[in-house]
């Protein structure tokens, strides 16, 4: 029960994108389409779960003053390992996710969750937090990507809804990402309250 509650809390109450506003750089940069948003979200979730578990397991072995560099090393190691393994054994995933994986290192959702949650809770809870925050991040990115793709190109994934030439290019570019994100945050907050 507590496991599910932690997931809910990390995904909805403290949604990394809509509430904590963490990881804005990959959020704005990679959500030009729904599929891109989803891919980035899933890759981040995988690393987030691994890094949360490890950081929670070693939390008592790490002196406070050097915790940030240690967490960064853990996160960067996982990202690189993931990239090597995907390149070697899952070339199909590498095709679609390859360019996003190095970006995960600089995603502050990971460091944020490590610092705010994993360094204070046990491994199981930290894993739940990783799943929750990862899910929240993935859903947010997919939603943002879908809205931008729809307004910018008239299609979502492969489904063409109105002709591409009617789309507003603004939404595929960076300013559109900021505008769309602002609207989504407003909608999210008004539904939540």
């Amino acid at each position, binding site marked *: 029960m507590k496991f599910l509650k932690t997931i809910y809390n990390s995904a909805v109450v403290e949604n990394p994108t809509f509430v904590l506003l963490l990881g804005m750089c990959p959020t704005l940069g990679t959500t030009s389409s729904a599929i891109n948003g989803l891919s980035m979200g899933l890759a981040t979730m995988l690393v987030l779960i691994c890094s949360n578990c490890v950081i929670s397991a070693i939390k008592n072995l790490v002196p406070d*003053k050097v915790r940030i560099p240690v967490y960064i090393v853990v996160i960067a*190691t996982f990202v690189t*390992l993931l990239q090597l393994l995907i390149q070697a*054994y899952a070339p199909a995933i*590498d095709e679609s996710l390859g360019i996003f994986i190095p970006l995960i290192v600089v995603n502050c959702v990971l460091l944020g969750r490590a610092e705010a949650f994993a360094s204070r809770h046990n491994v199981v809870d930290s894993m739940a937090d990783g799943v929750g925050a990862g899910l929240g991040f993935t859903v947010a990115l997919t939603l943002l990507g879908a809205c931008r793709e729809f307004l910018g190109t008239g299609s979502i994934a492969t489904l063409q809804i109105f002709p591409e030439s009617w789309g507003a290019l603004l939404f*595929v570019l960076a300013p559109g990402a900021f505008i769309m994100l602002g609207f989504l945050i407003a909608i999210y907050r008004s539904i939540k309250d």
Partner: protein
Amino acid sequence: MKKLSSTLPNMVIVLTLTTVLAGFLLGLVNSVTEAPRQKVANDKRISSLQSVVAEFNNEPLAEAVKIEIAEGDSVVVYPTRIDGALTGAAIESVTHEGFSGDITLMVGFDLNGALIGYEVTKHAETPGLGSKMNEWFRGEGARNVIGLTPGTEGLKVTKDKGQVDAITAATISSRAFLDAINRAANAWNIYLTNNN
């Protein structure tokens, strides 16, 4: 267990151990995955090669030649033959003009220097914009580069008074793409001159 206090020896030991362990893990996985990654890269090269050239029955990878197109700047030519007679080539070309990092292409040419196919094999262009180049330049109308002959002049985007329509909102990526094509065409001309 009690948390380790932040004394100098503790911090030095923990940081050293973490980095050594991380380095060891990375080194281990790097060496274990070296062979499979190499194989994946080779398979990819062969499949992209097959998709950009006409039929062949030799082994282009074994006949690869490095052609220097400028001082210290070379691209790899994979000649294709049917029963020993040259039919064209696939050329692996790189451009450094990309919007974010290098773009690697496999470009196919026939004996007349006409472009018969291309495949973007590696890039880090903006998703949704520059990343469209693998589909864009085989589309309808003036954006299509298949069948064009870059020759020694090279292809240019319409903005630069050329003949190819650039990707909407991704002119830099489009210029880089054509740069890679032109470099490949250049290498192919040199190869043909050297072998005639």
